[in-house]
C-alpha cells in the first residue's frame, strides 16, 4: 500500500474555490515538495462530487476517501495518515447512505471536461451588480496591473501567458500589445470587438450579458499595457441586452473610479464608451471596424500601416475580441504560468465554444485547448440530437471556416491543428451536422452569407463570391455541369489570393472544405442530379416504402399539403404533384419508411439507380 501512488484531488468547483480550495491545494503541494514526496504523492484538481456545503473537499485515492472542510493546515496530517496506509478520521466525510439520484457535475460528461476561466462567473453573479463581480475577485487583476506593475510588466505577463486572440486569427495578444506600447503618440486607443456576426456564434454575446465587468476589467488592463486613455467597445445593435448590461457596467465602474481619471490612485486615465454597430459582418475586420467608429462606411483598408501604429483616427490602436479581454484579469491575478497550465504549447488556456446544430446539448461550453474534437461533440455536447442519426461534419469558424468530417474527429482543438484541416478555430462557433445535412447546400448557405456581406471594395470578393453562389445555386437546382467543381476551386484560389481582408480571404473555406471532404456529394449533384439528403428539392423526391409503412397515419395527419393518402393500417402513398418536400413526414415517421428517391422531374438512369440503392 505504502508504495502505491497516493493521488490527492482538491475540488476545483466554484463553491470549493470560494471556500479556499486554492490555498489547500498549494498547502498540499508545498508539503509534498518540502518532504520530497513527489514520487509517492500526486496533487491535482478534481471535479465536484456534489458535496458543496462541505467544502473545501479533498478526495484521496486509493480508497476514494472524502475529506471535508479541509484547511491548509490539514495537508500534512492527511498526507501523513495515507502514507501509513491509514485515514484521518477527524476530517473524513461519510456520504449519506442513500446518495441523491441527482448526478453531480463531476459525474456528467457535459461538465466533466469543462474548466471555466472566461466564464468564471457564469450564472453565479448578477451581471448588473458590480459588487457581485468584485466579490469574486473582480478588478483585483486591474488593481495589480495599475498599482503594482509597470506597463512593460503587464505586457510581459500577457506575452508569457501565451494568450492568443480569441476572435479567430489567434494572433498573440501580448505581442500586439507590445507593438502598440512602443508606438509614441499623444493619444492611443484600445478597442473591443463585440461585433460577433458568424451564424451560429453567441459566445461573446453571452460573456457581455453574463459578465460585462470582465470585459471592462480586461480593457483597463490593456489600456495600462499600451498607454491608451480612451477605449471603445464596438457592439452590434442587435444585442440590446449586452449593450444595456455593458453600459451599466461602464457607468458603475466610472462612478467607482475604476474608469476615468487617476484610476485607483495609479495616475492612469482610461475612459470607456460603447459604439453601436449596424450589424455588418465586415465590421468585425479591424480596419473596417475603426472606419465605422470614425463614422465612415465600414470598409477595410490595406495594412501596413498596422493599427498598432496608425489605427482609429490615425492613432496607435489595439483591437481585441470580447473573449480575449475576459481572459486577461485572471492572468494578471494568477500569473502567466497558471494560464499556461491548461492548453497546449502553442495554444494556451481554454476556449469558449457555442455548440449548435444537430447536437444534443446546445449551449455554451468552455474547454481546455487541445481537447479532441470528438470529446467536445460526444461527451460535452452529448452527441447527435436526433436518435438514429449519424454525425456528418462540424462547421468551425462560421462562414470563414470550414467543415471537419468524421474521420478527423480526433483532431486536437488548438489553432494550428484546426487550421491543418482547412477549417479555422474562428471565434468559437461550432455547428454540428448530421447525415440529413447536404454539404453542397451548406456551402451555398455560407457563400450566400459572404456574398451579401462582402463590402464590395475588392472585385474578386464582390464578384467572385457572387459567381460562386450562382454556380452553387445551379448545382443544387440541377443545372450543374461537368467541370463546375474545378471552376469553383479555381475561383476560390483567386478570391483567397487577391482579397484585401479576412472576409474575402476566408470566404472560400466552406466551399473548399466541403469539396475536399464531400466531393462525392458535389459529383452526385452534378452528374446524377441526385441529392441523397433530399435537401435540394429539385434533386430528390420523397416516397413511402410500402414494405416498411405500417399505415399509422402520423405522416398523413402532419402533412400540410394533405398529400399523403392511404387506408388505416395499410401502406400510405405520397401524391407527388401535391408534395412540397417540406420533410415533415420524413421527420415524423417513427419507422423510417419515408425514403429519399430520385427527383420526380428527372428520369436519369443513374439517379434512379442511386435512388434505388438508398
Amino acid at each position, binding site marked *: 500500500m505504502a508504495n502505491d501512488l497516493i493521488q490527492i484531488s482538491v475540488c*476545483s*468547483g*466554484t*463553491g*470549493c*474555490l*470560494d471556500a479556499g480550495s486554492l490555498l489547500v491545494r498549494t498547502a498540499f503541494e508545498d508539503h509534498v515538495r518540502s518532504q520530497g514526496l513527489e514520487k509517492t504523492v500526486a496533487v491535482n*484538481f478534481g471535479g*465536484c462530487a*456534489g*458535496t*458543496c*456545503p462541505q467544502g473545501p473537499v479533498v478526495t484521496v485515492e486509493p480508497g476514494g476517501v472524502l475529506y471535508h472542510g479541509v484547511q491548509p493546515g490539514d495537508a500534512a496530517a492527511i498526507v501523513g495518515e495515507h502514507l501509513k496506509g491509514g485515514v484521518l478520521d477527524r476530517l473524513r466525510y461519510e456520504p449519506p447512505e442513500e446518495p*441523491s*439520484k*441527482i*448526478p*453531480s*457535475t*463531476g459525474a*456528467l460528461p*457535459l*461538465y466533466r471536461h*469543462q*474548466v*471555466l*476561466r472566461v*466564464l*468564471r462567473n*457564469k*450564472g*453565479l*453573479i*448578477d*451581471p448588473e451588480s458590480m*459588487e457581485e463581480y*468584485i*466579490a*469574486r475577485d473582480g*478588478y*483585483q487583476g486591474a488593481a495589480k496591473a495599475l498599482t503594482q506593475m509597470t506597463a512593460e510588466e503587464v505586457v510581459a505577463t500577457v506575452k508569457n501567458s501565451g494568450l492568443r486572440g480569441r476572435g479567430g486569427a489567434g494572433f498573440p495578444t501580448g505581442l500586439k500589445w507590445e507593438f502598440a506600447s512602443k508606438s509614441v503618440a499623444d493619444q492611443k486607443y484600445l478597442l473591443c470587438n463585440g461585433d460577433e456576426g458568424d451564424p451560429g456564434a*453567441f459566445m461573446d454575446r*453571452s460573456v457581455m*450579458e*453574463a*459578465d460585462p465587468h470582465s470585459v471592462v476589467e480586461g480593457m483597463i488592463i490593456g489600456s495600462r499595457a499600451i498607454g491608451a486613455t480612451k477605449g471603445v467597445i464596438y457592439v452590434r445593435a442587435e444585442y440590446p*441586452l449586452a449593450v444595456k448590461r455593458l453600459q451599466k457596467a461602464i457607468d458603475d465602474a466610472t*462612478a*467607482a*473610479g*475604476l474608469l476615468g481619471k487617476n484610476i*485607483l*490612485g495609479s495616475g492612469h486615465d482610461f475612459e470607456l464608451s460603447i459604439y453601436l454597430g449596424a450589424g455588418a459582418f465586415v465590421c468585425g475586420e479591424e480596419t473596417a471596424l475603426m472606419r465605422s467608429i470614425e463614422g465612415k462606411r465600414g470598409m477595410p483598408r490595406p495594412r501596413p500601416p498596422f493599427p498598432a501604429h496608425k489605427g482609429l483616427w490615425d492613432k496607435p490602436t489595439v483591437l481585441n475580441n470580447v473573449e480575449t479581454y475576459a481572459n486577461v484579469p485572471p492572468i494578471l491575478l*494568477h500569473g502567466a504560468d497558471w494560464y499556461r497550465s491548461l492548453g497546449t504549447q502553442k495554444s494556451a488556456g481554454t476556449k469558449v465554444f457555442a455548440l449548435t446544430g444537430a447536437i*444534443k*446539448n*446546445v*449551449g*455554451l*461550453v468552455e474547454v481546455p485547448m487541445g481537447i479532441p474534437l470528438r470529446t467536445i461533440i460526444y461527451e460535452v455536447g452529448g452527441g447527435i440530437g436526433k436518435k438514429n442519426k449519424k454525425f456528418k461534419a462540424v462547421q468551425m469558424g462560421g462562414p470563414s471556416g470550414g467543415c471537419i468530417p468524421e474521420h478527423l474527429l480526433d483532431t486536437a482543438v488548438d489553432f494550428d491543428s484546426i487550421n491543418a484541416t482547412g477549417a479555422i478555430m474562428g471565434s468559437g462557433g461550432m455547428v454540428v451536422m448530421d447525415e440529413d445535412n447536404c454539404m453542397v447546400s451548406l456551402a451555398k448557405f455560407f457563400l450566400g452569407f459572404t456574398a451579401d456581406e462582402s463590402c464590395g471594395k475588392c472585385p474578386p470578393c464582390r464578384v467572385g463570391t457572387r459567381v460562386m453562389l450562382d454556380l452553387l445555386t445551379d448545382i443544387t437546382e440541377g443545372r450543374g455541369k461537368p467541370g463546375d467543381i474545378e471552376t469553383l476551386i479555381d475561383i476560390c484560389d483567386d478570391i483567397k489570393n487577391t482579397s484585401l481582408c479576412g472576409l474575402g480571404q476566408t470566404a472560400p473555406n466552406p466551399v473548399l472544405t466541403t469539396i475536399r471532404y464531400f466531393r462525392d456529394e458535389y459529383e452526385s449533384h452534378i452528374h446524377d442530379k441526385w441529392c441523397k439528403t433530399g435537401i435540394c428539392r429539385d434533386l430528390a423526391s420523397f416516397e413511402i416504402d410500402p414494405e416498411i409503412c405500417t399505415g399509422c397515419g402520423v405522416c398523413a395527419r402532419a402533412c400540410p399539403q394533405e398529400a399523403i393518402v392511404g387506408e388505416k393500417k395499410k401502406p400510405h402513398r405520397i401524391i407527388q404533384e401535391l408534395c412540397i418536400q417540406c420533410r415533415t413526414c420524413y421527420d415524423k415517421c417513427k419507422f423510417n419508411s419515408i425514403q429519399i428517391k430520385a427527383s420526380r422531374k428527372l428520369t436519369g438512369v443513374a439517379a434512379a439507380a442511386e435512388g434505388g440503392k438508398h
Partner: protein
Amino acid sequence: MSKLTAEDLVRLRDKARAAMDFEKQGYRGKVVMHTGTCGIAAGAEKVMAVLTAELKERNVTDLVVTTSGCAGICSREPLMTVQLKGQSPVKYTELTEAKVKSIVEEHLVGGQPVEKLAFVMGCEAAY
C-alpha cells in the same frame, strides 16, 4: 460612490463576498433564475413571475431570489439554480409553471431537492 483605491477594493470585495453569502445574511437559501437572451427567449421571465407569485402566496421570505446570466445549457432553458443552506446547488431545466410549483413546494418549502426534475447538482470546475 467615492473613488476607490486598491485597498478599498480589497475591503469592498470582502464586504461584497459576505453580502453574497445568503447564510451570513440570515437567509435559508438562494434561487437564481438564468436570464440571458437565451433564457428570456425560452420564457425565463414568465417562469420568474410564477416563482415570485408562488413564494409570495406561501409567504416565503427567507430566500434570496435573484437573476444571473446564461448557465451554458441553452437548449434546456428556462433554467434555475437552487441552493439551500447545507445543500449543494441544484439546477432545474426546461422549467414550466407546473415544474416551478413542484419545486417551490418540495424543495424551497419542503427542503428536499426534487430528484425527478433536477438536472445536476454541484458546482462547475473553474481556475
